[in-house]
């Protein structure tokens, strides 16, 4: 996983609430056995017509946002299916951070496994950053994971919360499985005890 420390980039505004993982990456693109290449179909049905033409009005098709690295979105971003193809598609497009008032649980966890930082902020802060994002390429939002701050293009600073363990893994690009395997002795001990307590499992 790529490390995440500081990011200064263009933010694309997606003011819709309940953006679900079917919108982020429709099911026909889940028939892959790879993690890469999904960016071409990110938000496919909102971004392209059925015959593959770009839909002009969609934010990521506008010249100012083609290089966006941040998305500012409405409430409950990433609801629905557990498909990790959603963060894979975002990452492959170049998105490293999503800012919203709230995230669906599984999507939120999936982001951290892929070096994407989901930031939950109060509605007032998201509203301000949404307005900032609407300014297009002239407005660059700065995200600092170490300091846990988001800074608008006007210099307004918003602090955010992040789980200490997840932050540590993101900052250092750590592999969860490797970390867990260091605790193999605890897992062995638990398994032995559970085997006695609940042998039917």
């Amino acid at each position, binding site marked *: 996983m790529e490390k995440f420390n500081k990011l200064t980039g263009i933010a694309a505004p997606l003011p819709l609430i309940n953006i679900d993982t079917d919108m982020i990456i429709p099911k026909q693109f889940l028939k892959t056995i790879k*993690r890469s290449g999904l960016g071409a179909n990110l938000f496919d049905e909102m971004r392209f017509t059925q015959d593959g033409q770009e839909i002009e009005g969609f934010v990521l098709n506008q010249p100012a946002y083609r290089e966006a690295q941040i998305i500012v979105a409405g409430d409950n971003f990433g609801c629905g299916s557990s498909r990790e193809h959603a963060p894979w598609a975002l990452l492959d497009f170049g998105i490293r951070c999503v800012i919203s008032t709230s995230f669906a649980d599984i999507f939120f966890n999936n982001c951290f496994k892929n070096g994407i930082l989901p930031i939950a902020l109060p509605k007032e802060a998201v509203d301000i950053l949404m307005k900032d994002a609407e300014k297009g390429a002239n407005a660059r939002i700065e995200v600092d994971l170490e300091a846990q701050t988001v800074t608008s293009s006007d210099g307004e600073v918003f602090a955010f919360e992040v789980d200490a363990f997840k932050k540590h893994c993101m900052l250092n690009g750590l592999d969860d499985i490797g970390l867990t395997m260091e*605790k193999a002795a605890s897992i062995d001990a638990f398994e032995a005890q559970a085997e006695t307590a609940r042998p039917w499992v």
Partner: protein
Amino acid sequence: MSPKTIYDKIWDAHLAHEAEDGTCLLYIDRHLVHEVTSPQAFEGLRMTGRTVRAPGKTIAVPDHNVPTTPGRDDPKNMTEDSAVQVAALDKNARDFGIHYYPVSDIRQGIVHIVGPEQGWTLPGMTVVCGDSHTATHGAFGALAHGIGTSEVEHVLATQTLIQKKSKNMKVEITGKLRPGVTAKDITLSVIGETGTAGGTGYVIEYCGEAIRDLSMEGRMTVCNMAIEGGARAGLIAPDEKTFEYVKGRPHAPKGAQWEAALTWWKTLFTDESAHFDKVVTIKGEDIAPVVTWGTSPEDVLPITAKVPSADDFTGGKVDAAQRSLDYMGLTPGTPLSEVKIDTVFIGSCTNGRIEDLRAAAAILKGKKIKDGMRAMVVPGSGLVRAQAEEEGLAQIFLDAGFEWRLAGCSMCLAMNPDQLAPGERCAATSNRNFEGRQGRGGRTHLMSPAMAAAAAVTGHLTDVREMM
């Protein structure tokens, strides 16, 4: 000892390690695997030279992609990319020595129907799968939830998950349900009340007389959609109905182990005065047969209501509701019972069990579907299908004009050839009405199997109580 919820008890019994910052390793008893969210995880194991830690606790079945028409065990009858995913699951199951039910096996079906049916899912277990509807297994008093592919790889390699504990939420359905009201109406009504983010950060315990009165099939329907309410998991304390359902299943404990298991399972209830961080109470008698009108599972109304207007909402929901109405092609003020339907889909991990097929068949018996209607039943597993044939249900569906398909996820998410065309309107017993969910431009109304059967007959959304 302080009083505990059932979630607290299962959590404590599976805690393999707790770090100082509260990050926990939760031991996983059952890992269910399907073809869509697992190939990258197995590839990860191969690339790092890791193995599956507990193959005996890992169960794989192809369901999302598979066609539901005859001849599907020949890869030539699948699209190329689907065949590649199914072949990858075949190979991964063989290479890593995990339990496997191929499409040619009568026990194949939707992973969340196969698990309970085969007795893999037991009370008090931790159950995960790379699929959000893993919440289904909570009906047994198990802690069950969906995970992403990176977590699938983590569980394969370590049999644990890195977790922080969720908060406790209680959803109580008091009293009795009225005639024509089912488990699906309960679970949709709860989401209608709490919203799709109402459960975010929580594990829900469903309780109350109306929940106790449900069969195991009905309880699975309720828990299945906990994720649609945003919860990590939903569960129901096990009782005699649970034990009765589990007893004698192929992988359920037998003999002395059954007795030992039963003794522990009977301790899996929420202690009196245990703390819940959030409580929602709904009177069973207030729940009506419901349908969804929009593109979020929270867009729920009684069938007797009218299509709402965007002005009926506030905040971000105003724009979302207008977008839904445009996508669904609905005019505010139209009675929902006048909305015409092109297609009916009965199936999915929400409503693809035998009781669901019985409920739909009871409405369809001796009737025909509306002229021009496309209607299909996709049983949740090969065994459900066989039982429905034995009970004469299949013949009722066929006589009514339904297609009688083989088991799989099918049109719930339309990854196989069963899809809606743009603008096609479907009465569906599945769990998601998102834009494009059942096919690009397709319009989905969620409802119970009996309501879907009624719509198939009349050709429009219908109050099933008028046909009972």
